[in-house]
């Protein structure tokens, strides 16, 4: 500050200086972002980089390791269990996500109608998503259990199954069906509620206009609902694809990857190889095998969503 020809420096109180500093966007922004960034680096980036490092090394629990390049990835392809797992992952994810999508849209449309006890029903729909997965899967394990299967008991008493009924967790196709069913049961609320949110946001006038133009319920669904829902659907499918690919609990509790590896997923096989057998390098390679594919899927989806949005 200059008073006449004398320069005077006035030190503002600390409180005021801090307030001034925080008023600047270029300071406040990074300040707010830093904790989240720190957490991301600590909890996501660091473990991810470690996993990458392990995947290209011959790491074995507690022993010195060295770089082996892509040998783990190449060797894995020699393993029958891994090839089976690779196939299972696509069958499991493809069928589970498709079912969740179809059933999720149906359920959301149903929930969007004027129903009695609407709130209670919407709350109840969320239940499978709220209960811890391991616990609810244990319930399913009992229902599919070869000794006490309530599914078979019901099927036999309804006359739709011949005694003793399918060996749900002991035969490969049935076992895959069982894990898909539980995954669909578990993931359906996510689809239904998210799609419902999308449905609610569609303006009623569009339906009224379509109705005035003579469009029936099916035409209204195809030409109004579905196009306007597509960005929401894309996001839901994207998230669900990633979660389903990396599912662990359901298979671990229900089948442990059996029978004869027919239900192993990347996560369960990675645990078996990486933790239980100590081969961390191979385990990490199993978990990261589909990482490039998933990155591509994410890129395509986000591109699609962006195009829909603008």
């Amino acid at each position: 500050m200059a008073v006449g020809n004398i320069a005077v420096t006035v030190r503002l109180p600390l409180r005021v200086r801090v307030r001034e500093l925080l008023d600047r966007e270029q300071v406040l922004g990074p300040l707010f972002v830093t904790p989240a960034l720190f957490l991301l680096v600590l909890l996501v980036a660091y473990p991810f980089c470690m996993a990458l490092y392990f995947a290209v090394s011959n790491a074995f629990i507690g022993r010195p390791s060295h770089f082996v390049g892509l040998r783990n990835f190449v060797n894995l392809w020699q393993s029958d269990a891994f090839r089976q797992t690779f196939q299972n992952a696509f069958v499991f994810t493809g069928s589970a996500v498709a079912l969740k999508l179809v059933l999720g849209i149906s359920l959301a449309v149903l929930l969007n109608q004027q129903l009695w006890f609407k709130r209670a029903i919407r709350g109840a729909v969320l239940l499978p998503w709220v209960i811890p997965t391991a616990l609810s899967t244990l319930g399913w394990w009992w229902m599919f259990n070869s000794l006490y299967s309530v599914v078979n008991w019901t099927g036999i008493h309804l006359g739709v199954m011949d005694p003793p009924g399918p060996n749900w967790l002991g035969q490969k196709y049935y076992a895959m069906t069982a894990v898909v069913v539980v995954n669909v049961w578990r993931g359906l609320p996510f689809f239904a509620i998210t799609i419902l949110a999308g449905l609610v946001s569609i303006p009623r006038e569009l339906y009224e206009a379509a109705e005035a133009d003579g469009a029936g319920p099916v035409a209204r669904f195809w030409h109004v609902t579905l196009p306007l829902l597509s960005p929401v659907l894309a996001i839901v499918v994207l998230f669900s694809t990633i979660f389903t690919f990396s599912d662990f609990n359901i298979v671990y509790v229900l089948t442990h990857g059996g029978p004869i590896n027919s239900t192993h997923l990347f996560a369960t096989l990675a645990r078996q190889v990486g933790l239980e057998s100590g081969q961390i390098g191979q385990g990490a390679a199993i978990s990261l095998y589909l990482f490039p594919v998933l990155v591509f899927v994410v890129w395509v989806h986000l591109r699609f969503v962006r195009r829909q949005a603008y």
Partner: protein
Amino acid sequence: MESIGRRRFLGTTAGGGLAGILAARVPPARGQQREISYLCWNNFAPAMDKKQNDIAQRFTRDTGIKLRIDYIAHPQQPAKYAAEVQTQAGHDLVEMRMHFPWLYEPQLTDVSDLVAELEKKHGKTLSSGYEAAHVNGVWRAVPMYHGLFVPTYREDLFKQAGLKVPDTWEELYTVGKELKKMGHPVGIPISQNYDSISTAGPVLWSFGGTEVDRDGRTVRINSPATEQLVEWYKKMYRDCMEPEVLSWSDASNNESLQQGKAGWIHNPVSAYIVAKQRKLPTADLINHHRSLGGPGGRHETDVPRSIGIWKFSKHVEPAKEWVRYLLGKREVYDEWVMSADAFNLPIYERLQDHPVLRTDPKYAALGAPGVQYHLYGWPAPPTDKIQLITNSFIVPNMLAKAVTGTPNKEAIAWAETEMKKIMAG
């Protein structure tokens, strides 16, 4: 002589001492923390954990060493141990199941001195304890106890049908056929669980076969003995068992026997103990008999447990004191073993005729001599390759393939290929 001032004297001695301590990375004896921590599994015999806590309190009172025991479920052990090893931090002592001392060999303190002391007191360690904890010539863990696999059967059904208690796996087939006709099939899992391996191994060994040679490298699964094994499983599956065994977990055979369905199972004595504790109607009907044999002898898989001390522990000596206290004092060890009600038995030769076997006449079969106890994959040492073969459930999967229609030779060739790939990897 130059006189040293009070300040300089204090500065020099304190600085030098601190430097020495920092260089050695070991605190001086007076400053050492007399507190140790032990990571243990949640015992299938919970009374043993409770007793261990009581013993730990007495240990603290007698030695002044504080002991903290943490318990975790056994499926969580690999992840927890891997985390401790990777971070080089955690507990001082860890409970080790089966082949764990091999898995964590470079991270475990040499405890040969402790084992020598214990063997002097209690006799040699049983074969499975030796196979599990004696790693490349060094004891990496101290054998504690083992849980036996033993044939468990419905005595009432045998009496009702006039069946003779089997002595060989072949005789079990004859008995099993009758049991299945009575609606009480044999319960041997053929699925991706450890009980499946725990039966398949002894049957294979009894027929004179092995998965991998003693050298730990040469795959021997494709042999006439394996063909016998596969044939035996196929006829057992067809005539003595039900397809549910293909989806069984480790607990299923117990449940099947306890709920009154199975007539014979191969499992640790827990099936009976639990039935007795829960006062199930089947408890009085269950009994055990001697392990089955074959042309290759009488073998069993058991579950040896040992206790290891991490190399990164800063309290190795106090940790060793705990091991001496728990396992070295006969009266303490007996008290601990008795609390498990024959589920966990001493793993030292001179303690084989333990009083716990006389607490119930149904435990008599557990003390039968002439049975050899081994780890999975025996006679190969449980190296990382053998562990991967075991944990990949290759033998149960080979058997599952065969009993569900894959030709024997094809199933065996598949197992051989998988094992060879692991060996070459």
